[in-house]
């Protein structure tokens, strides 16, 4: 079986994945996205020989371009372009969740300084202003009052490029005990979940949030798997808010980091990813044989 893994850099996650493949007797090719030259109109036989490409690039734009080309060539990828493209865009994620009736935080979209301000006022303070793309909580802003809103919007419209001129305004959801939940879904299974606790309102572990085990209840498993299915499935991490009315999805991530979640959950996340990747590659090969 020939497996490739696209990376931008080899982080702890990629190293653990390589080890998990090795433990199953599979030596994978590690492909650095910074060195790739792809000719979309001229499928490369070296790529066509892969049974699966596991996409682990840290760059959102490289991920989407590469997956789009490989899928057009018929190379099986994980995640696929559909899932990655939806998760890469917060509005696309919101709409995908809505189409599948998955509970989520309320959102408004507006496009001018004046209309975004009005949207924030209508949602009520505090509100959360997010860029449509981006990760690790970058430029995610808690807007506490009108003066802050005016200042933030003036900065965005004066200094920001046009992608930052679309206002994605989300209800601020109070986090009990300063925590939210991240669950890990691989295929149709919710593997494990962590609480992310922080004194800061942004709880990303990349920003200092502390991970502890969160027991997977039936309700967490259900909303996690429904959210994963809504964005196209594969290997995803779901960020959940806890509210009195139940769980709400905040975001869905398609290329998750998991180094801080293995120890608290006791779950071998890379092993589960690799097993799912091998299963996906097998199914792709079987489908290919049927088509032949």
């Amino acid at each position, binding site marked *: 079986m020939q497996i490739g893994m696209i*990376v*931008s*850099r*080899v*982080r702890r996650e990629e*190293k653990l994945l*390589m*080890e998990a493949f090795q433990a199953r007797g599979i030596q994978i090719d*590690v492909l*650095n996205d910074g060195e790739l030259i792809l000719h979309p109109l001229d499928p490369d036989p070296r790529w066509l020989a892969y049974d699966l490409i596991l996409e682990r690039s*840290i*760059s*959102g*734009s*490289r991920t989407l371009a590469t997956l789009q080309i490989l899928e057009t060539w018929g190379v099986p990828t994980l995640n696929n372009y559909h899932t990655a493209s939806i998760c890469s865009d917060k509005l696309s994620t919101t709409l995908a969740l809505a189409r599948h009736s998955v509970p989520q935080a309320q959102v408004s979209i507006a496009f001018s300084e004046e209309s975004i301000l009005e949207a924030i006022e209508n949602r009520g303070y505090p509100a959360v202003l997010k860029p449509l*793309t*981006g*990760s*690790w909580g*970058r430029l995610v802003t808690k807007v506490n009052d009108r003066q802050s809103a005016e200042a933030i919007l003036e900065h965005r419209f004066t200094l920001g490029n046009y992608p930052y001129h679309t206002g994605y305004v989300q209800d601020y959801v109070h986090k009990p005990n300063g925590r939210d939940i991240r669950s890990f879904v691989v295929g149709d299974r919710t593997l494990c979940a962590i609480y992310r606790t922080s004194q800061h309102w942004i709880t990303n572990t*990349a920003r200092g949030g502390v991970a502890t085990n969160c027991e997977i209840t039936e309700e967490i498993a259900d909303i996690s798997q429904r959210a994963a299915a809504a964005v196209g499935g594969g290997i995803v*991490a779901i960020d959940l808010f806890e509210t009195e009315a139940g769980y709400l999805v905040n975001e869905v*991530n*398609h*290329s*998750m*980091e998991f180094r801080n979640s293995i120890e608290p959950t006791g779950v071998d996340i890379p092993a589960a990813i690799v097993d799912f990747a091998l299963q996906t590659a097998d199914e792709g090969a079987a489908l290919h044989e049927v088509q032949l």
Partner: protein
Amino acid sequence: MANPTCTECGAEINLPEDVVLNEILPCPECGVELEIIDLDPLTLALAPEVEEDWGE
């Protein structure tokens, strides 16, 4: 062979036995992130700065 040194502060970097190309190693003294950009000869460079579209 002697261990490589940090390109920023000159500290000695202890390499893991299973070091791989493009692996990121933090310098234990100055804290910068170093990237293995060649295995033969073993070469370290400062890892790229975080870009706007990086994430998960």
